[in-house]
Every structure is written in structure tokens, then in C-alpha cells.
């Protein structure tokens, strides 16, 4: 897929609870094609300590309004600066980068989308793509507490949503891999994105139950296009760039000890 450097305009920047913002961007021309699971490298302007772009996954593409959405967790100086953009500001992005999730062969497959924390972001666009092709995606979303569960209404519009929180303030108490849906339903395919320990636990569950599983990694990255070889993950084929060969991998390709 052709990659672009674009100056996009902010149409909306909404604070979602304390630590997250949802930034919507547009341009006059139609946005390029983007696939669920792909990401953008966003330039951070006006921060003294932020030198590199920030890789942020594509949360959603609103084709009707020609908008691309980014769900951003405020982690350090870079994301905190990005979170201050206002309607009408310009944000420079490089996109679409990496490979997306694979789509199922048919609409009969039982599909589970597992997101943890801000890792739920790509699952919204993925869920929509699956619904569009006639699948019935099921979402399992985990977070520390109720305040960290994001975009629940949007997810509910696309399929059944199950939640867990570590403190029990919403959904079932515990981790996503402890949720009762995993005991009552046999899925054919799991897509997951979130903290690495969570994805490893999800991949372990998939392995033990003979379920296909794709994970989306977020290794520390510089170039985003496979040039600098900084974001490597150790795989069956040796070190490969998460930005170019991933960020989505079948867990079987990785050398995770699960």
C-alpha cells in the first residue's frame, strides 16, 4: 500500500476520562485507504523533549465524514503535547504503516476481539470491517478500572461487548483471560492488542484451545518504515521489524515462551 506524508486538520479533540484523548483528523481530499491494525507515525510539534514521531494505531476511519480517528493515551511528554491540539490545528502524519489484521475466510467464523487498555483502539475499526463483511464480532475489553474502558457505546453498535476490570468497578473482576465468555464459547479466531503480558496470556489461551490468534505489537519504534531496525521482535525468521513486518503477527511466528 502506498504510504503518504499528510498535513491533516483537527476536527475534534475530546478528552475521554483523565488519561485519554480521541483526536479526529481530516483533509480536503479523500483520505488514503487504511486497513484495521495499521498505524500512523504522528509528528509532535512544540515539545522540547520529543524528537521522534509517535506511532499510534488507527482507531477508526469514518468514511462518511472523511475522518481518521486516533485514541491516544497520555503517557509521556510527546503524547501529552499531542493531546493539546485544538480544532483547526494541523497535525502531520505518515500513514498507513505496517500490516493489518487478516480477515476471516467466511462469515461463519466465531471471532473474538480482545483489547486491553488503550490497546482497544484498533479493535473498533477492525470490528466495523468485520461487521461490514457480515461477521458477528464479539469484543472482550479489559482495563484497570471502569474509567479506562473507552468507546463502549461505539463497540456495542458493532457486536456483543464483554468487559473486565482489575478493580471490579465494571464488568467481571480480573483479567480478560479470566472472563467467563472464554469458558462458555468456543471461538475460531482471536485478534488481540494491549499490554504484552495480556497478549501473551491471550495467546497462551489460544494455543491451549487450538484457536488461531493474531497479536498487535508496539515495540519502541523510530522510523516506522523498516529502515532503522530498532523495533525488532525475535521471530522464527530471526529479528524482524514490527513496523514493517508487523505490527500484527500470528503468535506462532513469535518466540514467546507461553
Amino acid at each position, binding site marked *: 500500500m502506498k504510504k503518504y506524508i499528510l498535513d491533516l486538520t483537527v476536527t475534534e479533540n475530546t478528552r475521554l476520562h483523565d488519561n485519554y484523548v480521541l483526536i479526529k483528523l481530516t483533509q480536503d481530499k479523500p483520505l488514503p485507504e487504511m486497513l484495521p491494525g495499521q498505524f500512523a507515525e504522528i509528528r509532535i510539534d512544540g515539545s522540547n523533549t520529543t*524528537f521522534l*514521531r509517535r506511532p499510534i494505531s488507527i482507531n477508526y476511519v469514518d468514511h462518511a465524514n472523511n475522518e481518521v480517528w486516533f485514541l491516544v493515551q497520555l503517557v509521556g511528554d510527546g503524547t501529552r503535547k499531542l493531546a493539546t491540539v485544538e480544532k483547526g490545528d494541523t497535525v502531520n502524519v505518515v500513514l498507513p504503516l505496517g500490516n493489518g489484521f487478516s480477515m476471516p475466510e467466511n462469515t461463519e467464523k466465531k471471532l473474538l476481539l480482545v483489547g486491553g487498555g488503550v490497546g482497544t483502539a484498533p479493535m473498533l475499526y477492525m470490528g466495523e470491517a468485520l461487521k461490514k463483511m457480515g461477521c458477528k464480532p464479539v469484543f472482550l475489553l479489559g482495563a484497570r478500572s471502569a474509567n479506562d474502558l473507552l468507546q463502549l457505546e461505539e463497540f456495542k453498535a458493532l457486536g456483543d461487548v464483554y468487559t473486565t476490570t482489575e478493580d471490579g468497578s465494571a464488568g467481571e473482576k480480573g483479567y480478560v483471560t479470566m472472563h467467563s465468555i472464554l469458558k462458555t464459547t468456543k471461538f475460531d479466531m482471536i485478534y488481540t492488542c494491549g499490554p504484552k503480558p495480556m497478549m501473551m496470556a491471550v495467546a497462551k489461551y489460544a494455543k491451549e484451545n487450538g484457536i488461531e490468534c493474531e497479536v498487535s505489537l508496539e515495540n519502541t519504534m523510530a*522510523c516506522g*518504515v523498516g*529502515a*532503522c531496525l*530498532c*523495533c525488532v521482535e525475535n521471530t522464527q525468521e*530471526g529479528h524482524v521489524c514490527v513496523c514493517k513486518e508487523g505490527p500484527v503477527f500470528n503468535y506462532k511466528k513469535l518466540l514467546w515462551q507461553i
Partner: protein
Amino acid sequence: MADLSVNIGKLNMANPVMTASGTFGYGLEFEDFVDLEKIGGIIVKGTTLHHREGNPYPRMAETPMGMLNAVGLQNKGVHYFVDNIYPKIKDIKTNMIVNVSGSQIEDYAETARIINELENIPAIELNISCPNVKQGGMAFGVTAKGASEVVKAVRDVYKKTLIVKLSPNVTDITEIARAAEDAGADSVSLINTLLGMAINAEKRKPVLSTITGGMSGAAVKPIALRMVWQVAKAVKIPVIGLGGIMNWRDAVEFMLAGATAIQIGTANFIDPAITVKVAEGINDYLERHGYSSVKEIIGALEV
């Protein structure tokens, strides 16, 4: 339009803008963003005789106005390059240059000899300055004797343009530059990354798997500029300047300090189209100041 062409050894370059090894892949990674043929020279990823997996992750740490890397020369070896990469890049109409690295003199010479046979690779850049490899290139680059030995061995088997990339992690870089020149180098490029370190205070751990790594980016520019100025006065062969060049103005500063050409490295990560913008910016600068050729500003610093 001013004349932007410059010469490095037998190389004729349409403009003085090159890409720094390890920051531009094999060029192909950037073809969506820039017309590769508008770049004076593309120096591709460091190539060794044998396959190298490089260092474990994590390999990168962002620093104020810069970054540290500890990639460790990950590449699939020169034979893979010849069979699989060269066919894809040989018809790109600019100077495609291979950065050659190694851990012993015989390996450098053998890799150079193999690349010498590739018709559309008109030059190599000899990396005697990688800070991220044990017993690695930098061992040769930190003494005049080491630099001289490896450059001589490669010069014996390599007949095209030979550029030697110098380490800034030395007491006197001009001494190493002169040793490379005396051993037959056609040009020296500098600076490679500066040895640095990052620590995660919360975890009480180093950020990089290798503890130390090579620093690059805007923050290193004043050091690079000073070294280019010193080396340009010390040698007769053309100097290629790099280190923290983020825009055309930085590039002009390096040329005023004595560089015949410049390389853009880390800036490619922030603006993947920066190379062509720098070439255009140099042209605008020349026109604004009434120069007809970029050669007129090489070493034109008034002190």
C-alpha cells in the same frame, strides 16, 4: 537553478545530498515519499561478510533532540545483498553506495572485493566506527594504526571510490582522517554516532539491551560541525559531513565548514521527504546569495 553537482573521488553527484547508512534502508523503503533519483547518493544499510542478527531488543532510546541506537549491524550478509537486494536497486539512477562493516580485516576486504564486482555500485563507505559491535568496526577506527591497516587492505582489492566513515569517539579525529587518507581513501565521512547511554530511573535499568549505544540527531550537530571543520583543514581528500543535519541550513553550515557533500540520517525518521527538501533549500540559498555553483561554498567560512 544553480549547479549543485559535486565530485567525491570518481563519483559524480547531481547534488551534495546523501543518505546516512542505517537510516534509509535500501532506499526502497522511502520511494513512496521521495523521488530517489533526486538524491545525490544513497548509502544503504551496513553490510557484513556474514549474516548478523544484531543486538537484542530494546535497541532505541529517545533523548532530548536526539536518539540512541544499538542495532548492531543487523543484516543478511553480502551474498544475500548481491543475490536479493542488488537486483532491486541497481537501476535506481543515482549513486547507490554500500556501507561495508566487519570485525576483522579479512572480512572487510572480502566484502569489498565482492561489491567491487557489482557494476552499478560505484562506491563503498567503509564503516570503521560502529560503536555497537563487540570487537567491532570501532576498534579499527579509534587508532591511526588500525584505520590505516583496514583501509590499506580494502584499497588493495577495491578499485572504485572508497569513502571511510570516521568515529567521533576519539581524542583527535584529524589523526585518524590523515591515516585513512594516507592509506588510500578517496574521501572521509564524519561523524558516526557518539557513544551515549540512557537509564530508566524507575526501573533502575539501562534502556538499551547493550547498556550503551550510538547517539544521533539534532543534538549532536555542533560536535559534528566542529569535527568536520577540523578534518577539512587536515586532509586534501573531500570530506562528507553528517551528524544532526535536520534541514537545508544545517547542510549549508557543514559545507561552509568544509564538507563537499553531506549526509542526512536521523532526520529521515522525522520527515521521510527531507532529503529532497534539503537539496532544494541549498539551491535556494545559492541563488539568494548569487552563487552559480555549490562548489563555491565548500569551505567558504569566513573566520
